[in-house]
């Protein structure tokens, strides 16, 4: 038997494949953001520390441009009420979260590939550390942006409000992830980066718990 949240995810997945709204806008946004950075940089040689930071700038703004769709689309199409009748809040949240996690992983993989192709100084010296921090950072990004997307959708889908609300919540994650990316570029060992990794893990766990606890209040009104 398929679980309910999985079918909810499939529903989102199929509707996404039909319209390709999120994928198209995310892909275009990635290209636009990276090309703006490339134009701004020009012929200058970008230092290693800077590429690590710019990497997360692009990730943050790309996430902000596309991840609110998960809940905003339900409100726009007027299907939120049907979902409320059909399934429990936690099921809805799980379905949306799975969808956003996959979206974040696709998007960030593309960004990482483009970065290593376009920036000469973006050389990952410790790939294991980069991979671990990348996966953990993606989970955190997906969790926080999903719960904020739910708030935004109920607040009347204010597009400009989404990055404003998300940024303070994501700030601990982004700061630590920038640090971890720099470590990976420097070739620091995982042993030395264990405090930062512990922070990201605890961030993920805390945000996941809080999101599941508070989603009921957002969803039922």
């Amino acid at each position: 038997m398929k679980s309910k949240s999985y079918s909810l995810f499939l529903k989102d997945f199929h509707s996404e494949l039909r319209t390709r709204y999120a994928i198209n806008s995310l892909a275009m946004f990635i290209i636009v953001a990276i090309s703006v950075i490339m134009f701004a940089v020009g012929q200058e040689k970008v230092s290693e520390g800077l590429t690590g930071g710019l990497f997360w700038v692009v990730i943050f703004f790309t996430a902000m441009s596309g991840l609110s769709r998960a809940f905003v689309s339900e409100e726009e199409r007027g299907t939120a009420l049907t979902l409320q009748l059909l399934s429990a809040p936690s099921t809805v949240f799980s379905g949306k979260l799975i969808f956003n996690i996959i979206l974040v992983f696709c998007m960030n993989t593309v960004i990482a590939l483009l970065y290593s192709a376009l920036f000469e100084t973006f050389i990952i010296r410790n790939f294991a550390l980069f991979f671990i921090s990348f996966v953990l950072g993606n989970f955190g990004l997906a969790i926080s942006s999903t719960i904020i997307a739910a708030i935004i959708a109920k607040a009347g889908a204010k597009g400009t409000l989404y990055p404003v609300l998300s940024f303070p919540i994501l700030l601990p994650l982004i700061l630590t992830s920038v640090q971890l990316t720099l470590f990976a570029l420097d070739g620091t060992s995982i042993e030395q980066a264990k405090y930062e990794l512990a922070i990201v893990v605890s961030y993920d766990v805390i945000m996941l718990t809080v999101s599941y606890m508070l989603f009921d209040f957002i969803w039922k009104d």
Partner: protein
Amino acid sequence: MLKISWKIFLFLLLAFVSIAGIAFPIVENPHAWYEFPLIPGLEENAKIIFFHVPTAWLTVVAFLVSTVYSFKYLRTKNLDDDAKAYSSTQLGMVFCILATVTGAVWAKFAWGSFWSWDPRQTSIFALLLIYGALFALRSSIESEDKRATLSAVYSLIAFVTVPFFIFIMPRIMKGLHPGSADDTNAGPVVNFKMNGSMQLIFFLSLIGFTILYFWMWRLSYKTIIYRDKLDKKLIRG
């Protein structure tokens, strides 16, 4: 009578703290009770501690109070609790701006620049952003219940990120504040380098500002609650 007398007490306390904090001299070897010791590296700048630390403390207290009442609102769905949370947020924003400004001024004279992304500066900046986001969220929603619920949820989510800033970030990032990871000159200023009179003024200032906060908070949430009641009365006729 009691009501007026504690207001007079608060006035006298804050007046004493302000005068003492600004006017008491800093000397090398303090003998008289009103003389402050010379703290190397701080000198005359040390006096702003009586105003900077209480505002930073109240920023955190206001945020805590607002979170507690947000939590209470989610349990009781009583709009009075939302008014309490909201008024505490407003006051927190005021104190947050004050702490940022006094801190920046102090940083200019102690570390040479107004802003240097020290971990605690980053934390207070994040708190400023959280407060700003809460106001932006509140002003975007028309319906009273929805506004209260969503802002309560948001302030709870924001609250769980605060420990990262306050406790973890300063420990792992290089910092200039006392108590940072790479702080070599032996720990917090409060315990080691203040003498008795300085500590007395410092804690009096903390107490005075805290009472001031609770007084302002009470006034402000009562205003909101009465205004809402009056509005409803006028509409119903």
